[in-house]
């Protein structure tokens, strides 16, 4: 096996663990957002377990790469990755959304190691990422900033203020993934308020745009490598994804945007995910 094949195989195994964590923590919590967490698993897994230069034992290491989960409701995918990476004990996952627990319904940077910025009110993460990218440049650090936007989230005007600024400031240390799963709470993104044509919009805003399969780890990693080589402009990867990916009864179902699985549904989902985690 070539080294990339081995890498992909290891990452694929990680995605099963991450998905299983997501399902179990949401079932334990009794509320939360599975659909948009599951659609972003490959992107987040590739970033945390292959791409990013981070030190879980030193979460505030100044030269680290940073990940901004702008679509904050997908907190479970971030928490799963952080726990698996060792930023905090996996047991914290089972206390998600509980009174007094560390893991809040939406990411809270103040209380959670590894969370780079508090998000939840949509459309704000890219602005903060711009600030991080500017700070890295001012300090002469090699840090790279990665952002995950939702395809419904880009309906927020602030995203485009930030997109304009990132290109104006030539932030080539910044890379965005759009989790293009085509669903938002009230239905199909294209029907509620279409952001299309997304590619043309980002192009017009001065970004380097790549289109990838957001569930293909190799394509994600390749997009990151491409972005590293693009000078003088930020890169966006529009990642075609399936909301609820990996759990048969959740895939492409708008109702699974913000609903937790029951115990029975959790068991079924964990089985489908290869039984890497006990119910």
């Amino acid at each position: 096996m070539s080294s990339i094949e081995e890498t992909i195989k290891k990452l694929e195994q990680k995605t099963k663990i991450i998905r299983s964590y997501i399902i179990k923590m949401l079932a334990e919590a009794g509320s939360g957002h599975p659909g948009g967490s599951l659609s972003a698993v490959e992107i987040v897994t590739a970033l945390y377990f292959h791409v990013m230069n981070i030190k879980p034992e030193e979460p505030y290491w100044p030269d680290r790469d940073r990940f901004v989960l702008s679509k904050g409701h997908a907190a479970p995918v971030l928490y799963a990755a952080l726990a698996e990476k060792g930023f905090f004990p996996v047991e914290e996952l089972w206390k998600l959304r509980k009174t007094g627990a560390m893991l809040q319904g939406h990411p809270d940077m103040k209380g959670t190691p590894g969370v780079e910025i508090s998000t939840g009110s949509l459309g704000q993460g890219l602005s903060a990422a711009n600030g991080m990218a500017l700070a890295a440049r001012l300090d002469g650090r090699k840090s790279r900033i990665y952002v995950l936007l939702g395809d419904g989230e880009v309906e927020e005007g602030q995203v485009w203020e930030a997109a304009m600024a990132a290109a104006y400031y030539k932030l080539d240390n910044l890379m965005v993934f759009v989790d293009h799963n085509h669903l938002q709470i009230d239905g199909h993104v294209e029907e509620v308020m279409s952001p299309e044509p997304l590619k043309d919009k980002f192009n017009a805003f001065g970004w380097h745009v790549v289109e990838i399969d957001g569930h293909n780890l190799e394509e994600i990693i390749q997009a990151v490598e491409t972005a590293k080589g693009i000078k003088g402009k930020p890169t966006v990867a529009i990642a075609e994804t399936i909301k609820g990916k990996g759990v048969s009864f959740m895939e492409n179902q708008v109702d699974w945007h913000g609903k937790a699985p029951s115990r029975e549904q959790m068991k079924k989902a964990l089985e489908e995910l290869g039984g890497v985690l006990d119910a």
Partner: protein
Amino acid sequence: MRKEKMATRDAYGKTLIELGRQNRDIVVLDADLSKSTRTEYFAKEFPERFFNVGIAEQNLMGIAAGLAASGKIPFASTFAVFATGRAYDQVRNTIAYPGLNVKIAASHAGITVGEDGASHQTFEDISLMRGLPGMTVIVPADAVETRFAVKKAAEVKGPVYIRLGRPKVPVIFDETDYSFELGKGIILREGKDATIFATGIMVSRALEAADVLADKDVDVKVVNIHTIKPIDEDLIIRCAKQTGAVVTAEEHSIIGGLGSAVSEVLAENYPVVIKRIGIQDEFGMSGDAGELLVHYKLTSKDIVEGVESCLKMKKAL
């Protein structure tokens, strides 16, 4: 009071240069109002540390948050109405909730914006910022106090809102014997009949009112409350105990600002008669700043009348 006049925004702009020379982590952001907010002074000396994000206040606050999350000390400036209103959710969720070290220094607060009218005059900014957990709120009374307040804001960790004004206002304090203590009011004049708690441009007016009242044999204490949050509870209670009557004066709505803060403290600790001088529950309008201050009853004469009505209430108790 000296004869000299200077706008608090001018003092802010000059102080930023001082800070910029002392600390490389100071960065300044503006949203296409750098000439008005005076951040252009900093921009000229430190262009690499100045970010004009254009007419995009939401992005302004978000970028400031990201810079702060990476260890910078950002001062984000625009008009007060936009900083606190247009970008309220960004200030709330991305700055205040995580407690990020962003300094929001907003100019053109209050009715003295003048001719631009109601869309640009905010009387609710203190209220909005005061309601945010962990947000420090400072309203300097003059240029000297502004300089000290801005330097203090850069020193303390966490979000700070500094309210600045457009017009030239009297310089009250002497730089050589002024000291700024965050959260501590300053007694400017002793008196036994009533206390005037004033903030911002109303401090100099309160001092004028005290002179007028002295001629009428009314002896009032004047206290400068430059920090609205955290409010100086001890001093407010002590003054209320000493004088038994309180008047508040602010270039802000009587809802949610200094008047509310003082009333809250006294209602829970030492109820006395209170009269709030400020803008009533209404929007502003275009006009000359001086004329608007008269129209909205924010003159020393209005403070005098406030004290007199307060003393009448006190007597009737």
